[in-house]
């Protein structure tokens, strides 16, 4: 089953840490991704630039409305995602727990809406 893992954490938390924290965090991410790739679990993923670089777009009554910032101000912000192929929700939970940001943030696990090749 395919899932999207949405990685949320407080952007301010990262800023509060010492200089080496981010480097170590990214190293951990690379290591986890490597392991998940070798297990055939990792399908893709990316880190996202912080929410102050976000732009939100709506179309209402044929008008394109553009605003600066994420669609909503939240306590934790979306910082990245993994797309994975897991046996079931328990396996997905195990994988999510390995994501380094899970230590201080939240991982939301969303099943990807059925595509023909992912039907079980």
């Amino acid at each position, binding site marked *: *089953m395919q*899932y999207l893992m949405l990685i949320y954490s407080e952007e301010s938390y990262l800023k509060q840490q010492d200089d080496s924290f981010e480097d170590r965090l990214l190293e951990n991410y690379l290591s986890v991704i490597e392991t998940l790739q070798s297990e055939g679990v990792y399908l893709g993923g990316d880190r996202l630039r912080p929410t102050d670089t976000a732009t939100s777009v709506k179309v209402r009554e044929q008008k394109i409305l553009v605003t600066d910032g994420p669609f909503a101000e939240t306590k934790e912000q979306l910082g990245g995602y993994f797309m994975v192929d*897991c*046996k*079931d*929700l*328990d396996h*997905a939970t195990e994988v999510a727990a390995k994501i380094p940001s899970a230590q201080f943030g939240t991982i939301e*696990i969303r*099943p990807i809406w059925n595509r023909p090749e992912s*039907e*079980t």
Partner: protein
Amino acid sequence: MKLEIENIYRQHTGKMLAYLCCILKDLDKAEEIWHDIVAGLFEKEQDLPSPLLPWLKTCAKNKAIDHLRKQQLTLQKSQLVKAIATELTDLSQEEALFNDQQLKLIFACCHPALEFDKQVALTLNVVCGMSTEQIATALLIQTKTLEQRLTRAKRKIKLAGIPYEIPEQSQLTERVQAVLKTLYLLFNNAVNHPHDPFHLESDAIQLCTFLHKLIPQEPEITGCLALMLFHHSRRASRFDSDGNLIVLPQQNRKKWDQTLIRQADKLIQEALNKKQIGVYQLQGAIQGLHSLAESAEDTDWRQIESLYYVLLNIEDSPVIRLNAAVAISESQGVDSALIELAHLESEEELKDYASFYIVKAELLFKKGQPKTAIENLEIAKTLTNISHEKRHLDNRIHQIKIISQNN
């Protein structure tokens, strides 16, 4: 005949859905097939096959295999092979397999990805075989609300991929807690009924016994079973012939089932010996102290109070603090208990909790304040929907009025 159908559902749904879910990994399909089988049973004007369960199982297997053949997907073909491979002639192995499947279904229904209300509704529907109307009545909620809840829960299982598996050893203790929470809620609901029309009390005990048999290494299961049996032993003394509630200090202890008490006592000792203390073991031990006291006056309140402190160390909640306050009122005195209650006044959780006002009322009455006691009992009355509880409170208010008039 409706009763017969209901009985078949109550008795066999858990096993049959477990069996079908393990082959098909699809609760919706499993339910469809099960309903077909039951409908088919009553179409013919014949007696039900006896013994029924093996016949049902064969029927289910055939229908499941039929369904899998029509699918023709490679994943399901391997499940098909598995299904055929589970053709067992040895009856003892068959029972073990059945048990395994049921356990998996219970864990799926009580999965942490489902919120608690959904876990309870699912367990009653899928494991205990109750209809939506029956569940709605038992839980005092609207049928429509319950139907939506069940639909969402079943959808979540399917779409999010909640597995029909027994959890890994590392997760087992935690996952067991969720199951016990659901079972204990079912049990508690039943305890509130003079007649327990849906036999939830015995169902909960049966399920807990089943868990205890299959997972004997988890002392919380043993503790929960002991807790249930201690409560169950008092069933005959809980209500009078008119369906009026009789509270613990006033129960006729001669009516308590000593066999059950001995059984429960043995279980609680077994659990405590494992030295992995937990909330159900502690609650079981507390109820044990009540059950083993020959009279209300003989109750070892000091020990009960100590057990509450240990319990609060693990799980600190306003309701547990309230129960602890009752023990404190007996072991230390009314004033100490009233101090505890003063601390609890601001707790949001207790604002609409009838027992809070009842405990407060009894303490105030002991302090010689009948008027404020009655005020609190009146508040408690507004917070309960259960008729025999309302009646009990009315009786108590009346009693206090008479006593205070005579003084």
